[in-house]
């Protein structure tokens, strides 16, 4: 791995990623049935000031990946099967609870999809923001209150002094998400995990919140993992896109390149089923139609030779011969800074790619 790093970064000064997820696998106990493999070998990395967008249909393991990096997965029933998540040279998956408490909220903050239920209904807004501040900064309660007011003002809540004493139910959804952001950013984290921060909000509020996030990221220089399944949001906000399917990364690329030339059939399907404004179609193309087409899998080459994009529902007869049937998947760098999830054919296994890292320019 180190070898690859030096090859790529010879030109510029090497920057280390803020956080890198390496081959993460997480599974859940399912009572009587077999374990649910929610995440099965995911890799990605975020650099400071960079926005990594994680896209994919719901249930593909985006949240589990993000929550794993905070050790917020309930264990049991959850379990980390493999991989690691490196942050400041430490593996977050193995960090003891005491250390983890400092990371959570202090170094890495997270905001969630459901602003309506993510705030505790029995405490005031101010109390909840101050709780985070007091936990991570050695300040007096008065000072904490001042920090909280500032954070609220930063996220655009008007009259923050009096709103401090309000309860969550007195706020609208958009306002609550602002509060969540204020709470997350009050401690100046290095990394923000935003798990579908705008999915539950209406379009105008969505735009405001995303602009707010971008502005804050700009002024603080933090890295951000933006989980979403809205490709418009991705196009406008992300630097790097990680596209997931069924607990695996299917494509990993800088945003412009991905939008220009998607390589994996699933990604192509995703783009193709967005109705463009300029074209007129009788009906929409579905992702299924695209990925079911065997032609889509042909002609992809990497430095190691031809590769076949990985797809769990691919016809048995079409699948290439595998190196090790128990490990059918590998993330292959098919061209510089372009990673595609491929079947782990012998050539792929012989020439392992470097982990996905796209440093900001």
């Amino acid at each position, binding site marked *: 791995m180190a070898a690859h790093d030096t090859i790529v970064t010879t030109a510029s000064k090497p920057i280390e990623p803020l956080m890198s997820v390496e081959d993460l696998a997480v599974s859940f106990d399912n009572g009587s049935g077999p374990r649910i493999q929610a995440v099965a070998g995911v890799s990605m990395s975020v650099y400071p000031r960079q926005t990594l967008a994680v896209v994919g249909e719901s249930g593909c393991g985006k949240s589990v990946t993000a929550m794993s990096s905070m050790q917020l997965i309930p264990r049991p029933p959850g379990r980390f099967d493999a991989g690691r998540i490196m942050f400041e040279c430490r593996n977050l998956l193995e960090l003891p609870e005491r250390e983890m*408490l400092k990371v959570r909220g202090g170094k890495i*903050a997270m905001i969630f999809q459901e602003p309506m239920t993510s705030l*505790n209904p*029995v405490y005031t807004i101010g109390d909840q923001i101050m709780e985070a501040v007091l936990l991570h900064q050695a300040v007096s309660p008065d000072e904490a209150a001042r920090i909280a007011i500032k954070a609220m003002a930063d996220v655009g809540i008007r009259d923050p002094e009096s709103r401090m004493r309000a309860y969550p139910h007195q706020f609208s959804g958009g306002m609550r998400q602002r509060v969540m952001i204020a709470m997350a950013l009050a401690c100046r984290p290095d990394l923000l995990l935003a798990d579908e921060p705008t999915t539950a909000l209406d379009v105008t509020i969505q735009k405001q919140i995303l602009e707010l996030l971008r502005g804050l990221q700009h002024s603080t220089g933090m890295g951000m993992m933006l989980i979403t399944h809205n490709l418009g949001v991705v196009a406008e906000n992300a630097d790097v896109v990680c596209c997931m399917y069924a607990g695996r990364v299917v494509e990993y690329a800088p945003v412009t390149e991905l939008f220009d030339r998607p390589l994996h059939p699933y990604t192509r399907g995703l783009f193709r089923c967005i109705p463009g404004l300029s074209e007129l179609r009788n009906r929409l193309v579905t992702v299924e139609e695209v990925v079911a087409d065997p032609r889509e899998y042909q002609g992809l080459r990497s430095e190691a030779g031809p590769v076949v994009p990985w797809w769990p529902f691919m016809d048995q007869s079409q699948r290439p011969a595998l190196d090790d049937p128990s490990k059918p998947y590998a993330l292959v760098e098919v061209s510089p800074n372009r990673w595609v999830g491929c079947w782990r054919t012998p050539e792929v296994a012989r020439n392992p790619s470097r982990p996905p890292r796209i440093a900001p320019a």
Partner: protein
Amino acid sequence: MATYLLRRLLLMIPTVLGITLMVFLLVALAPGGIGAGLAVQGGQMSDTSKVAQMQAYLEDRYGLNDNVLVQYARWLGRVSPLKFGTTPLVAPTGDLVREPRDLPEPVMMWAFPAPAAFLVQYTPPSGEALVEDFKRLQRDAEGTRRTYVGSVRGMKDALADHVRALGAPWISRLEPKGGADPERFRDLPLEGDAPTLIKLRAAAATMHVAWSDAEAARQRATIAFLARPYPAAGFEIVPNAFSLGAPDFGVAFSRNRPVWDLIATALPVTILINFIAFPIIYLVAVPTGVLASVRRGGAFDVISGLMFLLLYSVPVVLTGVFAIGFLANNQYLGWFPVSGLHDSAAATMTFMPYTDVAGTWHRGWLLDMVWHLALPVLCLVYAGFAVLSKQTRAAMLENFSSDYVRTARAKGVPSRDVIISHVLRNSLLPLITMFVGIFPAMLGGSVVVERIFTIPGMGSLVIEAINLRDRELILANTFMISSVSLLALLLADILYALCDPRVAYD
């Protein structure tokens, strides 16, 4: 907040009315009716006609011949703090004195015309003499009234005898139990000199004499009453028409004491027991539920759940009997007293325990009570453990998986603080709601416990009242127990509103 409280209090009125109406109907419509216990006791009285006359007197006194709803309205009128009609007076003993009631009409007026109505001339004295006079007149009025009501009953009995002597077809008009309703015999021929007829005529004469006496006594007593020998009860707004006053629960005929006196000694006992039991239930059940939810699926969770389910399945009567039999009875362990709230020597005890000069230890009043209450409270608490701890556990688990707990964890709040200040804090709300479910059940349970341990509380009182069919006492008991229950629920409501910022008061 004030309007909220007021609205809740106003809403309690129809609830209390509903409950008392229900019980009133039950008692009034139940076969046997009021004072049925007396009839049973009357078995020892030698003269059955005396029992009949006693019953007639009770019927007259409680107005049992009227429609049930009229009776209920009358009862409400007495209990209600707004009073219409002649203002009652308070005797120095604290008893309420009311204007003497009108007499019921003599029966069979068509055959035996009553003496003409008359007005007695009587000028009440003033000052001390008035009080003495009124007391005498009151006794007189009540005595003559009793005689009169008894004579009416005698008249009916004589009529029934006569009808039976006549035989068919008249006999079929008798009531199922053999009594005669004079109104049904308006067309009965009353000529001749059959022995039963002679008796009937004699009964009528007796009745008329009794009526004249009673009416004269009543008029005199009324005049004396209107001269106000005692101060008026409550606060008169329009003299003798409209006043405010304390609820009057009447007199318990079984004890011949004002019901309020009985309740005033019994209610605090019941409330005391419940208020000792409640903190114990919460102190045991809530921590157990919290621990069980934190170690969900673990040994503690399973064992505490099973233990509490076992306890929950033991009826209070069973625990009571076992506790008395094995723990209190001298045949076995004899560690605890068998009955009562205090030792017979309690009146002479000091409050706190002490050791006297001779070195003997005295337990004192407080410990004595604790010692007496230990078993009753034990019987009352254990069933609540299961309900409350299960509820706590469920509420905790639900909150554990809630979004705001996830938020708190993501903020870096330590696990213990998450459990206490987020999960438990939010689980308090259903626990307060649970109070609403448990409290009425506890009050009911304490009735049984008091009965088992012979504690002089509401439970013992109500069972005594039921056995004697003492309507006033039953109704007042129901009224008080429901009111206490409702007030406790109101308290829970207020607590809930204080704990949950989402509840608006208006």
